[in-house]
């Protein structure tokens, strides 16, 4: 491609402002910025939480205050000032809603702009949407239908009130309070999130979905998701996000815990498209997330993610393969453009005999971005006949971006079989030429090649999600290719 054309294309994209950047005007109930024990007490009191929950939060706070912010990631960013953040913000108009018509019209508009109108989703795909605006759940659909099967799908604060025995039993068992700096912070101050329980032997008939949005200016979002799949059950869970345009960096430190009991299967899909900052790297979301699942006997957890947003991403959805014959999967497409930085990957901890894991990671970097894969495959001495297969490919789209791979492989069992391969390359000029010869213009050709490159991962997404993910891929990369 000629230099001028390249520049033109680049300008087109970099000139494009964030399409999903808008703010919904709803009154919020916000706590003054700052973090100390009193703030945690206040959050807990506002949410009317039982005593054990407050103690759990305070214990986490104590651990957190003794920790230091980690610096090992291949990322450079100004550290967020955690004392300048307000730790609680909830939409004020809080009434029980039975149908969509009761939803605040402002919110409805937001959803429509996002192209995820609830009616459409309901009608087309039978998705139950638990819509999270800032930190409190405002609309939950399909609840009755799920209730018939005994599936509990609600906000975490509701679960703390109504199913304390389940929350108490499982919270912090996969991601303990002292797991890492941001997980500890989340444990102390999380405001809400989703809770999901699938009873024994139930195959959840629809995909469960939550849309997260960061809305209130200056609020850190501390979601906590707890997903429990009881013996022999199956659930597919979708999580997708967009955030309004903001100037200062917003911190998102979420925790997702999945417990997959014997013979259960959990499929967790994420499309992440938070505001990545402008082309100079100003603004954008800090996405520091701890996601982890534990697999018991013969169970399976599958993580699929399409990451296109956020200024800084730091995320390692992991599986602890505790039970014999358990399976962990990780499929990821991470796209970085402009000044975005991503350090993402997975950890597969093999404890059970014959446990298997697959890692497919596709990184695409453009502009001045840095995209790193960091993963761990650990085979413990007891994990006889464990098997891992990893592929990490990187596609480079400009001469100023970077693609990095940091795979850790730790094997302590003579029967372990681990394969890891990584390649880095740019889009083949011959491939583009081939398309152009056949009348496909360059931009379209690049789109085709990228989609083909990411196909292995996109194929793993549920249908409705895959459509959105493809759209995102195109939007994030359009014309950024040289």
């Amino acid at each position, binding site marked *: 491609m000629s230099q001028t054309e390249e520049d033109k294309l680049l300008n087109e994209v970099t000139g494009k402002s964030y399409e999903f950047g808008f703010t919904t005007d709803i009154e919020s109930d916000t706590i003054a910025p700052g973090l100390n024990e009193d703030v945690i007490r206040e959050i807990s009191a506002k949410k009317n939480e039982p005593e054990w929950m407050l103690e759990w939060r305070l214990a986490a706070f104590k651990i957190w205050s003794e920790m230091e912010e980690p610096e090992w990631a291949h990322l450079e960013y100004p550290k967020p000032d955690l004392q300048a953040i307000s730790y609680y913000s909830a939409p004020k108009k809080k009434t029980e809603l039975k149908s969509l018509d009761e939803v605040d019209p402002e919110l409805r508009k937001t959803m429509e702009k996002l192209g995820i109108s609830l009616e459409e989703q309901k009608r087309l795909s039978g998705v139950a949407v638990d819509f999270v605006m800032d930190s409190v759940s405002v609309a939950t659909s399909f609840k009755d239908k799920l209730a018939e099967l005994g599936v509990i799908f609600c906000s975490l604060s509701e679960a703390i009130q109504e199913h304390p025995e389940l929350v108490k039993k499982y919270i912090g068992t996969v991601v303990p309070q002292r797991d890492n700096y941001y997980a500890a912070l989340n444990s102390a101050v999380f405001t809400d999130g989703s809770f999901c329980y699938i009873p024994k032997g139930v195959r959840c008939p629809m995909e469960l979905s939550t849309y997260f949005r960061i809305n209130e200016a200056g609020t850190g979002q501390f979601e906590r998701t707890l997903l429990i799949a009881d013996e022999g059950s199956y659930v597919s869970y979708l999580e997708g996000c967009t955030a309004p345009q903001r100037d200062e960096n917003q911190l998102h430190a979420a925790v997702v815990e999945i417990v997959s009991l014997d013979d259960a299967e959990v499929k967790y899909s994420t499309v992440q498209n938070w505001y990545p900052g402008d082309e100079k790297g100003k603004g954008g979301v800090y996405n520091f997330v701890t996601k982890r699942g534990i697999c018991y006997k013969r169970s399976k957890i599958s993580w699929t993610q399409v990451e296109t947003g956020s200024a800084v991403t730091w995320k390692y959805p992991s599986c602890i393969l505790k039970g014999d014959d358990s399976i962990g999967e990780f499929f990821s497409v991470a796209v970085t453009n402009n000044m975005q930085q991503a350090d993402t990957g997975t950890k597969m901890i093999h404890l059970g005999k014959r446990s298997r894991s697959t890692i497919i990671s596709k990184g695409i970097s453009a502009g001045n971005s840095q995209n790193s894969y960091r993963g761990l495959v650990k085979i413990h001495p007891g994990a006889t006949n464990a098997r891992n297969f990893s592929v990490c490919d990187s596609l480079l789209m400009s001469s100023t971006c970077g693609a990095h791979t940091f795979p850790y492989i730790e094997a302590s069992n003579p029967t372990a079989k681990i394969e890891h391969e990584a390649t880095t390359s740019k889009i083949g000029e011959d491939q583009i030429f081939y398309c152009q010869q056949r009348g496909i213009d360059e931009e379209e050709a690049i789109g085709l090649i990228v989609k083909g490159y990411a196909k292995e991962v996109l194929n793993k997404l549920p249908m409705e999600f895959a459509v959105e993910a493809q759209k995102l891929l195109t939007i994030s990369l359009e014309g950024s290719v*040289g």
Partner: protein
Amino acid sequence: MTGSKESFISNFKAPENSRGLRSQGDQYLVDLPVPGRRSERWKYSPISKLLNTSLNTCSGEGVVWPEEILPDPVPFLDSYRLVFRNGHYVSSLSDMPIDDDVICMPLSEVGAEFTNDYHKREWVGAMNAAYHQDGLFLKVSKNVSLDRPVVIHHLTDGADIAALPRHYIELEEGAGAEVVVWSSASEKSSGMCNGILEANVSSNAYLRVDKICNEAGEIFKFSHEYIKQERDSRVKINTFTIKGHWVRNELEIVANGPGTDSTFNGAYLPTGTEHVDNHTVMDHAYPNGTSSELYRGIMYDKSTGVFNGKVFVRKDAQQTNAFQQNSNIVADKGATINAKPELEIYADDVKCSHGCTVGQFDKEALFYLKSRGIGSDEAKALLVKAYVGDVISSVDREEVRNEILRLYSERHGWA
């Protein structure tokens, strides 16, 4: 008090030469932290056990060479030879080239100081800078190829020894040299051998280094090679760990000009409770460079292996072609491998790939051999020989190749 970094070096004595470098080393010994589990580069190779010992540097006087070790480690190789014992040069056992175009002498006799910044980065490097005893100084003039390989034989001999050899090689434009760096230790020896080799390879020059560690006793061995390559130069480094209680091989190749070619291979087959760590860094900073890396290991018994291979492709290093392959076999219950192949790429028009595997002996290959009347052990030996053979075959000199093969065979009972 033992275990602190001050107490560990309290008995060390530095020779009088190279004051400048030594004082820098002293400074960084104070400033830099001791490698520990919390440091990314050392997390799999902690040295706390070593720090709890009390070691002494010794003088080069009154050398008694142990009978069981031959001064010439590769008997049939027609070579020059520099022999060191506990860091000190043993002139009576050495045989140096005499030629107008080649300067070869003990480093202690050369006034100049050469150094990369390793001593500013690592505590272990600072220790060598401050307390290094002696080593090889080799300088080959423009367009001259050294007619025979130079064998550097370092022996660690005695209890609680701190040996700190330091070698320097300078190849001028179009020059060539082959070097064999052989380290051995006597049965009853213990302590540390902390060696550094630096090489400057000018444009169009070539350097081949075969590094063999065959140490008995209980030595903590650190060895760091730093190779700087100029335009169109070629480098080939082979690292073999035949035997060693605790071995850390660090290899850093910096391509400082376009069109360089670097090949580096290694093999490690630790047994018992041995620990072998291979850290490699390949740094492509200029265009059109190629590098190829192959490391293979088998971990037996309760041994641990570590592999860390880093490939950097800097912003301007377009058209780089870098390949890295690391294969491992965990042969017994209790053995561990920690592998981490890394790519850091900042240029787009490059071809880079790495592969890393952990596996077992191919059952079908074993069955094939057994069905032809070859016993299980013998069949395994055949497979291992072929597996490691790919690395050994990259040694150019037949004599060196045969000796490596002989020592591996002896140790692992290959027929």
